[in-house]
């Protein structure tokens, strides 16, 4: 039988989307728990989400201080062990800083904070974030960030383009162009995953698109993918 589906939603000082993510997890049938960043044992959990916000005020560099939080050693251990780990927005930035995902996120091309829905095209289903989706699906999901501009040195990027890119900014028809790039991200990259597909990060906020009353339900497929990845079957 299936037990578990316990999700640790990590709370750093300055995180602010942790309750929203927990709400979404609950809505989708998982069992979320807010976990303070000083915690060092996550062995009871089936998955980990690093939510959005401004961990440590985003000071120094976004994610730079958070990656040294005590909990991150444990997150790294779980990531290596194949446990689903998802970083949303600031959480994605932290995963990059921690080296769990390649590249980095820098200030948006126009140096303005961007809060608006964007379109994302699903590029790969080999990740805990996209396994329930279909390549080519176009999702409308809110973006909400100042440092969402994905950069990586050329060799890293080349490597990533071998299946590591899971979501790209596109227009409503799914065409990927500069005009559809809200923040200057290289190759319109909005979300990526590691080689094993168990660690994924994206800048837009799927938890903000899970109910009709809030304007879109397109984020569900991504979070449902994640929840489905949590299943842990025991004897």
């Amino acid at each position: 039988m299936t037990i578990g589906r316990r999700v640790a939603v990590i709370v750093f000082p300055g995180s602010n989307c942790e309750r929203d993510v927990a709400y979404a997890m609950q809505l989708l049938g998982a069992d979320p728990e807010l976990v303070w960043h000083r915690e060092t044992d996550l062995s009871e959990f089936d998955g980990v989400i690093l939510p959005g916000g401004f961990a440590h005020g985003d000071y120094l560099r976004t994610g730079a201080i958070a990656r040294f939080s005590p909990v991150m050693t444990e997150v790294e251990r779980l990531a290596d062990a194949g446990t689903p780990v998802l970083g949303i927005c600031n959480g994605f930035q932290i995963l990059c800083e921690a080296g769990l995902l390649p590249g980095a996120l820098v200030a948006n091309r126009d140096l303005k904070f961007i809060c608006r829905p964007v379109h994302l095209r699903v590029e790969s289903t080999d990740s805990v974030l996209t396994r329930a989706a279909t390549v080519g699906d176009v999702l409308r999901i809110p973006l909400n960030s100042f440092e969402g501009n994905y950069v990586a040195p050329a060799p890293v990027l080349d490597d990533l383009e071998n299946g590591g890119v899971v979501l790209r900014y596109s227009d409503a028809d799914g065409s990927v162009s500069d005009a559809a790039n809200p923040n200057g991200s290289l190759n319109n990259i909005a979300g990526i995953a590691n080689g094993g597909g168990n660690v994924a990060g994206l800048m837009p906020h799927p938890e903000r698109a899970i109910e009709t009353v809030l304007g879109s339900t397109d984020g569900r497929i991504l979070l449902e993918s994640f929840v489905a990845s949590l299943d842990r079957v025991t004897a």
Partner: protein
Amino acid sequence: MTTEAPAHIQLGMTDAEYDAVVDILGREPRPAELAMYSVMWSEHCSYKSSRAWLGRFPTEAPWVVVGPGENAGVVDLGDGWLAALRIESHNHPSFVEPFQGAATGVGGILRDIFTMGARPIAVWDPIRFGPLDDAHNRYLLDGVVSGIAHYGNAVGVPTLGGEIEFSERYSANPLVNVMALGILKQEQLVLSAASGEGNVAILLGASTGRDGIGGASILASASFDESSGAKRPSVQIGDPFEEKKLIEACLELYERGLVVGIQDLGAAGISCATSECAANGGVGMVVDLDDVPLREDDMNAGEILMSESQERMLAIVEPDDVDEVLELAEKWEINGAVIGTVTAGGTLEVRQHGEVVAEVPAASLSEDAPLYRRPAERPEALDRLWADPVDLPAGLDVGETLLRMLDDPAVGDRSWIYQQYDHQLFLNTVIEPGHDGSLLRIKGTTKGLAVSTDGNGRLCFMDPRRGGARIVYESALNVAVTGARPFAVVDNLNFGNPEKPEIMWQFIETIEGMSAACEALGVPVIGGNVSFYNETDGVDIFPTPVVGMLGFADPMPGHVPRLDQAEPGMEVWLIGPEDPTDFAGTTYSRVVLDHVGGRPSDVDHTIGPKVVDEAVRLAHAGVPVLHDISVGGAAVAVAEICFRSGCGARVDSDDWRTLLSAGPHRFLAVVPPGFDLEVTDVPARRIGTMGGNHIDFGRHGRVPLSLAADVWRNAIPRRMG
């Protein structure tokens, strides 16, 4: 050689005020005491020129839990839920340093909310600038919006709207108002009273530095002139990260029932917080400044008492709970320092280095502040203004006129602003910025809160009483179109120099107009703020009251009207009385004719509330689009529906004036063909049909939808680059 002015004059006190201090103390004040009185008795802290008039506002209703006077007003939403609302100005600091001025404005207003025990859930930003063809005004707008975005987004409270106007009158004195909303459960309500001899005062949050020494009195209580540059060191740097930790720490303190009273540190810092806490509780306090965590160690007593360092709170705690409170502070990684003890009697005693540096009756700092009934006189120039109405042509190409109006930055798309603000955090946002009022759900209930901020300085300049009433009605309609009924008001009264009789007259008239409208609507005023001395080099701003209207929907409509739900073939209806003569203060007369003159139409307290009721009823009746008509007239209102819905419209009118006139009590409803509106109480007439690729006014001209939308979308971006 000039002799230096006496200390109290340098601190902005009059001789008479100084004498009053001597009377209270029975001796000359010590330096730190003088500093405390000067700030606490400043206009900003004491409301000495306005207090006598603010009592006019209606403040009572069965659902008011906390009215004006506390940090925020609180209303009862039923089922144990309360909402807290508060508005503040940060005008002068934002002119000196727009980014930090606006940022710290957000920080301050949030503290007012969580001081009440509430979690802040949304912010609004009514702002005013000089025209955008001037580079400095663009710099100010850019800085203010970035500052609000920086602080609000990082502290994790969504900004759900605001409003903006432009006029030369604001070039040297921009307005930055901020409003915040919080929600809480009944049992979490906390007040700012210290009580219980022996209780302990704990300072929480940031260290105390030399920030904004005398900022409140100097920046907010005096006019600006050439020498304002010298006041610059009083800029404060906001730290949203510290505030975020402080919010979480305080909310946890309340949850665990660990505070007896709490007060935020705003203007006048520690002296204000300690004296108010003590005075509100009818007690005294002994405070030791050696225990205050300092950012710079050589600060003197006056500097520490007066410092306006941000992100600090003063909690009053029972002795047994001190350890738990300090542990909690440590968990959230903020300072927690015991700085004082509550005493019997009413004396506030402050010590530093083992010596008493101040010893004053706590209540005297707030309650004995001077009260002025400054002379008020109606400006004669108003007669000339009223005798100079807009000169209207017999006919007009409304299409072409509309295009010119849409290019105006106060009419054009405001998304350049609100897309810089997180407006979705907490998953409550049902109607996001870009409509009339914004609407938030309260999760776990069927209740919704709608909020709108509204002001119109030009209209209030032309007739402060009518203008004041009209902005209240406009705000009421803005929340009503989301299905919420007007429930409570906060106001921010931004005015010029109160020592001028015509400014006092504007002030009193405005309050009269706003009060009458609130009474007619049955809406209590639960809080507000006064910002005087918005004057630079002798030029006063337009009198600019800003209304923050809280609407309450219980339940929310099953299907909430939105501007983007119009479809080809739907009928466009205009609900409310026609007023084709109302052109004073319209967008048309401002943008096209550059004319300020005539007299705005008065409100109608009989029909006004009925129109609001109809809007609420229609929102619940499933009408897909409701939109209030403001000073842009029906033409602009229809155009906004077209842009948001991506669909043209044809609107017919015998008289072009009905398309561009204002008129206080009107809104549009867009409904499927044959939908029975059942409007009986107020006038309603069908004016057009959605569809086509034009905004088409029949014989009054038309304009291609795509062109109009482009102009509207670019009005702000093309100027801001």
